[in-house]
């Protein structure tokens, strides 16, 4: 019998080691897997590379992971926020490295990583500092920049409901990076509000098929920020 469910968040992250590359879902607070991040902080692997759209808001979630000093490098598109003071201070004092990636390139690099694509040419960033030193090519009269995939050791994502096969549905704009990140990691761990019986999710509405998911843990409702 396939059973990807886990009893608690701690047992989802026990094998995450120092130096791991981890995709963290969410756009601001929506879709941020706060409880899985708390478990990661408790496990405390060091020198992590974190791939996420933002660099933490306030003092919870990704901001707490940064504050715990476990992150060596952030790969993100928009680390500058009014309430991202934790990252600001670490970055300015040289304690965390930043790879700034335009948001669409971040998404497409994850998509390529999950889809087995070796690299891709994108128009985004051509002629800007983002493209400095990168291979470019003119295709049908337009200029493109070569970008490479992102593949990670783990993905930590948040969904609305899941089942024991790992099938997931999301809630509103908390979906954001979840589906693509689920495809681009060796081990994908999803926290959900509740785990439902196999067969109760409408197959037409399943957004992430369980083949992309390795572990599912129920957090309960009211987990939104």
């Amino acid at each position, binding site marked *: 019998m396939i059973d990807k469910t886990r009893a608690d968040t701690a047992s989802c992250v026990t094998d995450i080691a120092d130096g791991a590359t981890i995709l963290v879902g969410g756009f601001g607070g929506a879709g941020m897997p706060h409880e899985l991040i708390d478990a990661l902080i408790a496990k405390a692997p060091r020198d992590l590379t974190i791939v996420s759209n933002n660099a933490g808001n306030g003092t919870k979630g990704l901001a707490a992971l940064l504050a715990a000093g476990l992150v060596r490098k952030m790969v993100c598109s928009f680390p500058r926020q009014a309430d991202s003071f934790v990252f600001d201070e670490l970055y300015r004092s040289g304690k965390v490295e930043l790879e700034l990636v*335009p948001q669409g390139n971040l998404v497409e690099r994850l998509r390529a990583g999950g889809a087995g694509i070796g690299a891709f040419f994108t128009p985004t960033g051509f002629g800007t500092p983002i493209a400095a030193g990168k291979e470019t090519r003119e295709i049908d009269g337009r200029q493109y920049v070569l970008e490479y995939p992102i593949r990670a050791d783990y993905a930590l994502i948040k969904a609305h409901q899941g089942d024991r096969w790992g099938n997931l549905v999301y809630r509103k704009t908390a979906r954001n990076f979840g589906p693509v990140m689920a495809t681009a990691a060796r081990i994908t761990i999803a926290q959900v509000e509740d785990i439902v019986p196999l067969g109760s999710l409408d197959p037409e509405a399943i957004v992430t098929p369980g083949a992309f998911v390795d572990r599912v843990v129920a957090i309960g409702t009211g987990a939104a920020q």
Partner: protein
Amino acid sequence: MSSAATDFKPWTRIEMAQRIAADIPEGAVVNIGIGMPELVADCLPEDKEILLQSENGLIGMGPKPGPNAIDWDLINAGKQPVTLLPGGAIFDHVTSFTMMRGGHLDIAILGAFQVAENGDLANWATNDPNAIPAVGGAMDLAVGARQVFVMMEMLTKTGVSKLVQRCSYPLTGLGCVSRVYTDHAVLDVTEAGFSLRQLAPGLDLDTLRQRAGIAIQAP
């Protein structure tokens, strides 16, 4: 020349937003950038159906919710709570940037630090070494939207024109801006540089040229 300046009354940000909103045609699919352009969402005419797309995965975005209807799983690119209109849709980031980069948006409305007369846009970083660099989806919109409208005050707080021959700040995209809405005037970006569409009340073209410090074609 001094009399022209004394009578001049720059458009307010709301008036700029209203001007943009009035130029958006029925049925347009529009992405509104964070910051000043967010004002445009509040000025859209009710008699036109305009689809607002947000990079975090929704189309058919509605107005701000009332205080009792806030759902933090339903937010916009600025991470503020929004609503969804009947017919609106939710999707993941891959689909969202397929829309944005793939030429499926009619108009993107962005803020800017500088716009050059060749349509180059600089809106994500200054040369301040202490600033945290952040780009978000701006570079994807710059290359992907069919038209890019910029909304900005024409002068910096210290009176320096943001309309330039060539951008001195890091670029967001090359030759991507089609129109600039400022507090002084509305300008098209053409093969021949900036071209006047509309002047704010009390301003004449020569005074505009002098303040902008750049060539501007008569309409």
